[in-house]
């Protein structure tokens, strides 16, 4: 191993040597700078490799050949080596990025950069307090110099503010150090930790001063206005160092000091950290400058790491893994994003749309954001999971709640930003992507994926990156250059092949979902053959969603389940975001899903009771004291996906604005994930009571209300796809209701709904999507009379609504029949009434699909409309066939499920004898019904043909309308506001109260952020007051103040 002294010495020496070069020899000076930084990086990499390979413990390096306290000592261990690698690499890459300004400013700027990197490394390695002070001051001076590399004249002010703050820090630090030395007789950190310092009265104060000085270097909220100004105005490559390297070094220094302070000071670190995390994320919400936004996020993340350091008493040796995961994730993401920001022409976040036409840049942006938010498979995902579990076990629920709240805020503004990048007007990039400036961003992206692999390997859980479905989905990223049809064929083959390979693994319940998720999606994807060109980004997204879905049903423990949940959420978010006007809807989808996921995370953490994860079947054995809470949290999580009433507002927009073949997927397939979750939950935990309320009863009510209100809202829609979307809300309500009945038939009905809803919703969305494609509108009142022009679409819709409304002879009737049997067995009268009422309401809106789109008068502009494209029709026709087969022999799949359910609900199983299905209350013979209906239909039809045979055909504009000639077909086709009387009577029930409620919440949060950030009034003296106030408050609240 190269001695730790060499890199420091090399940087120092070459910084001096640069001074010997002639002012004009800038290229050689730059080459030396890069060479030294490269050497430092390689050395650090060799250390990391060495420690990782040998598992060797860290060791001390005595600089003057004598042991402390008589000389300064450095320490080098795995943590130090990793941080050195981070710092040096960030320095090197930033130096590459800074090529132009460095060459313009000459050797002095390069020397300052070398000193900065060296000092940051020194801060990490040193074990001596006074040495710590020296390195901090070197960082201050170097920062003061490097800030000036910016083209922004305001950077000068920012640098000055920073110097003022650091003067205050210097005073605190020196006074603290000298009194600590006085109390202990040593300057060595470990020596001081051992003497436990006459920490009595003066000692505690001395420690406090040192501690707070170093904490301020981590830019804690709210004493951090100066840091934000630097983030905003400095050169982005320096901001990268400031965010990635400086914060990492400062955090490590805090950790070293905590060694001296002992466990008394851990709560203080936690408190400062959580305040920063939540506060900075809240203030980031109203940000309009991308770099300042990144600055806020950086402060928040640093705060979170501080929380982890403060939880050392819980995490023990695992602290390094958790803190390291969060810290490295933030550092890599921030450095990459700051570097990337240099290619963006303007500073408002919406200008990041410039990346839109550059897939690689967009991929980099997405990767870095995912890394920052902590989505799987990135290290911060593992870290957050491992942080939350001990917190839940130790009962630190407030902290846990605040962490999750902050995480949600962060996801909110980061994904809003991502939405801009895809949807807003795209300006031109300010530079070429074939340049070192973008090259360094790609290094960050590569580092992100490497870290993902590494953290997966190191974790006690499975390595997510190695999961076959996820790897298959990610492979589509590399294949994105292929034509869409080739990718479509590959995707379908992959789905079918995976089913063929794994179908023996599933029990009947999971089989239903596996069939829908794998084969069902393959079927829907046939529509994808309709798309010409490359369709960039589509396949990675859809495969990510499907990978998540399939991992969900294969998961056996809570970690795998949760990871799958997030994967499917993020995949479907990308998918929904592809729609033309879907930016706000995709965001609201993501926020509800992510919020739900965080509720699930809390639920799983509570359930695990200290274990790293919990088997899903073990949910049944959760201690009674927490079980109802676990149930509640998990149920809320799942219900965000099924769009239960109150959590439903994302669905209509998300489903309606999605692309033609995406709507059937996110509706027919994705919604089932929530139902699956609820099933797993209910099977494991059964009924729970909280404060005297039976939670399953609550679920029953939610199901009934969702069904009723969802359907009611559907009837007032003018947009065909929105109508279908609202109807999905209602349908999911039925399914939840069925599950909450907690009896055999209720579950059977829910499962039947799962299958049926998949079939007819996919079919209807495809059919309506095809019509919308051809007519160029989704507004139903602008259509009409399309029956002759689009007969196949008409048939699909016709069959679809017959199936869905539950009239005989199609499979919907089977569902109804089981459903009526199921509710006969319960005594929840009021919700049953609601559910009954929603049936006829469903007729109302389904009728409109036929009446308004296909019947009535053809509009002038639609006279040339053609039938929907072949590939859109093909899956629909297959669905029609499936519906008819399912209607004739429902037992094909259902009887296995019925049998399987007997395990859990022994009573009330159906009797499948021949063609007849018998329940306790009656029987159902699908074939007989089909025949009866068929005969009646044929009879009526032939009678109609018979009486109509002499009828005269009347063309559309024939004068038969009471002598008034209709110039516009609209006037003869009543379609708009079709249910006006109902609206008058029941409109009060569909007031957008829930939307208003959630709007109010987001507005309040924004308002708080907007108001609070006014404390940063830009005045350096105000910032100094903040700092002093912060120090005083921390002192009064800390162990020093109360002692």
């Amino acid at each position, binding site marked *: 191993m190269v001695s730790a002294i060499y890199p420091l010495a090399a940087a120092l020496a070459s910084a001096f040597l640069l001074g010997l070069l002639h002012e004009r020899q800038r290229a050689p000076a730059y080459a030396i700078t890069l060479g030294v930084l490269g050497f430092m990086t390689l050395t650090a990499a060799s250390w990391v490799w060495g420690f990782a390979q040998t598992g060797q413990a860290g060791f001390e390096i005595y600089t003057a050949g004598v042991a402390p306290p008589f000389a300064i000592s450095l320490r080098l261990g795995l943590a130090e080596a990793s941080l050195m690698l981070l710092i040096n690499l960030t320095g090197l890459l930033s130096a590459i990025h800074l090529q132009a300004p460095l060459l313009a400013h000459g050797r002095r700027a390069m020397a300052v950069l070398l000193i900065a990197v060296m000092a940051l490394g020194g801060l990490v390695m040193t074990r001596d307090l*006074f040495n710590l*002070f*020296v390195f901090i*001051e070197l960082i*201050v*001076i170097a920062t*003061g*110099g490097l800030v*000036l590399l910016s083209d922004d*004249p*305001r950077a*000068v*002010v*920012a*640098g*000055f503010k920073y*110097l*003022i703050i*650091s*003067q*205050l820090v*210097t*005073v605190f630090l*020196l*006074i603290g*150090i*000298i*009194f600590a*030395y*006085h109390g202990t007789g040593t*300057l060595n950190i470990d020596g001081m930790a051992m003497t436990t310092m006459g920490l009595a009265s003066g000692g505690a104060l001395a420690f406090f001063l040192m501690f707070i000085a170093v904490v301020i270097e981590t830019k804690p909220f709210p004493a951090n*206005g100066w840091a*934000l*100004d630097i983030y*905003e*105005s400095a050169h982005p490559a320096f901001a990268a160092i400031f965010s990635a390297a400086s914060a990492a070094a400062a955090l490590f220094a805090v950790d070293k000091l905590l060694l001296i302070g002992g466990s008394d000071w851990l709560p203080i670190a936690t408190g400062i950290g959580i305040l920063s995390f939540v506060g900075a994320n809240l203030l980031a919400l109203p940000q309009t400058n991308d770099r300042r936004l990144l600055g806020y996020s950086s402060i928040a993340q640093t705060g979170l790491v501080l929380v982890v350091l403060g939880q050392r008493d819980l995490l023990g040796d695992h602290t390094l893994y958790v803190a390291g995961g969060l810290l490295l994730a933030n550092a890599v993401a921030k450095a990459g994003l700051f570097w990337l920001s240099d290619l963006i022409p303007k500073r408002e976040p919406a200008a990041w749309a410039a990346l839109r036409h550059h897939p690689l840049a967009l991929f980099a942006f997405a990767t870095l954001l995912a890394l920052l938010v902590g989505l799987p498979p990135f290290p911060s995902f593992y870290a957050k999971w491992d942080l939350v579990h001990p917190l839940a076990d130790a009962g630190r629920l407030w902290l846990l709640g605040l962490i999750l709240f902050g995480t949600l805020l962060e996801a909110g503004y980061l994904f809003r930003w991502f939405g801009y990048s895809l949807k807003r007007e795209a300006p031109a990039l300010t530079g070429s992507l074939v340049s070192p400036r973008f090259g360094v961003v790609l290094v960050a992206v590569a580092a992100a994926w490497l870290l993902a692999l590494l953290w997966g390997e190191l974790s006690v859980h499975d390595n997510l990156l190695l999961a076959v479905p996820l790897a298959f989905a990610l492979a589509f990223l590399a294949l994105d250059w292929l034509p869409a049809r080739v990718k479509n064929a590959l995707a379908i083959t992959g789905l079918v092949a995976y089913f063929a390979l794994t179908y023996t693994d599933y029990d009947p319940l999971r089989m239903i979902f596996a069939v829908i998720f794998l084969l069902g999606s393959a079927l829907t994807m046939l529509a994808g053959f309709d798309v010409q060109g490359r369709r960039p980004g589509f396949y990675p997204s859809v495969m990510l969603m499907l990978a998540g879905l399939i991992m969900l049903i294969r998961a056996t423990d809570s970690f795998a389940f949760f990871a799958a949940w997030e994967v499917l959420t993020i995949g479907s978010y990308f998918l929904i975001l592809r729609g033309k006007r879907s930016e706000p809807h995709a965001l609201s989808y993501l926020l509800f899903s992510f919020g739900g996921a965080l509720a699930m995370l809390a639920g799983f953490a509570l359930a695990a009771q200290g274990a790293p994860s919990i088997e899903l079947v073990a949910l049944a054995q959760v201690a009674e004291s927490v079980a109802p809470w676990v149930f509640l949290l998990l149920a809320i999580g799942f219900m965000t996906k099924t769009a239960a009433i109150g959590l439903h507002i994302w669905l209509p927009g998300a489903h309606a604005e999605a692309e033609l073949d995406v709507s059937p997927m996110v509706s027919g397939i994705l919604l089932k994930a929530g139902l699956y979750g609820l099933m797993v939950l209910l099977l494991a935990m059964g009924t729970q009571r909280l404060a005297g309320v039976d939670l399953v009863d609550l679920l029953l009510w939610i199901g009934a209300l969702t069904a009723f209100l969802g359907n009611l809202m559907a009837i007032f829609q003018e947009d065909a796809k929105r109508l279908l979307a609202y109807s999905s809300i209602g349908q999911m309500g039925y399914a939840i209701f069925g599950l909450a009945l907690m009896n055999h038939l209720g579950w059977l009905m829910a499962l039947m709904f799962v299958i049926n809803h998949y079939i007819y919703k996919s079919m209807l969305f495809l059919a309506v999507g095809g019509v919308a494609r051809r007519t160029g509108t989704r507004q139903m009142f602008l259509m009409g009379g399309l029956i002759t022009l689009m007969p196949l679409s008409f048939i699909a819709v016709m069959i679809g609504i017959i199936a869905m409304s539950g009239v005989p002879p199609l499979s919907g009737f089977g569902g109804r029949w089981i459903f009526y049997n199921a509710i006969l067995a319960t005594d929840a009268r009021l919700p049953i009434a609601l559910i009954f009422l929603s049936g006829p309401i469903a007729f109302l809106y389904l009728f409109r699909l036929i009446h308004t789109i296909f019947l009535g008068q053809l509009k002038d502009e639609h006279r040339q409309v053609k039938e929907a494209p072949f590939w859109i029709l093909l899956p629909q026709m297959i669905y029609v066939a499936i519906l008819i087969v399912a209607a004739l022999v429902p037992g094909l799949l259902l009887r296995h499920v019925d049998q399987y359910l007997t395990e859990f609900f022994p009573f009330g199983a159906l009797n499948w004898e021949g063609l007849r299905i018998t329940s306790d209350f009656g029987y159902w013979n699908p074939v007989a019904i089909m025949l009866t209906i068929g005969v009646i239909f044929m009879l009526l039809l032939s009678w109609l043909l018979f009486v109509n045979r002499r009828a005269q055909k009347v063309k559309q504009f024939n004068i038969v309308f009471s002598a008034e000639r209709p110039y516009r077909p609209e006037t003869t086709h009543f379609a708009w506001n079709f249910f006006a009387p109902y609206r008058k009577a029941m409109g009060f029930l569909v007031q957008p109260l829930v939307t208003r409620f959630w709007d109010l919440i987001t507005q309040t949060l924004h308002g708080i952020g907007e108001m609070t*950030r*006014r404390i*940063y*009034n*830009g*005045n*350096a*003296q105000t910032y*100094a*007051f903040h700092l*002093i106030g912060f120090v005083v408050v921390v002192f009064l609240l800390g162990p020093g103040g109360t002692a």
Partner: protein
Amino acid sequence: MVFIAMAAGFILILIGFYGALTNRNLLRMIVSFTLADTGVHIVLVAVGALPGRTAPILDASVPVAEAVTRIVDPVPQALVLTAIVIGLGVTTLMLAYAYRLFAQKGTLDIAKFTELKW
């Protein structure tokens, strides 16, 4: 004597802080910080001082063998030297900044430099 030095040091620090927080003129702020710095230096030396002992310079008058009993604690003295040097560096940098700021706006009023905020 040590007490007086210590007290003087802390008073200087407080005066420095007060001056830096109440004066809006950049140069006055910088001067205030140098006052505070000086106060810190005095405190540093005062902490290491032992009454009746001599400077930690080992020469003919203080043989090595007797050093432990005759000199004051050398560590704070070493520290204060470093601190003075660093203080000089930072002060110089601040003055350079003040010059640049004045060149930008023709004023030294700190309250005029608030474009970066929120």
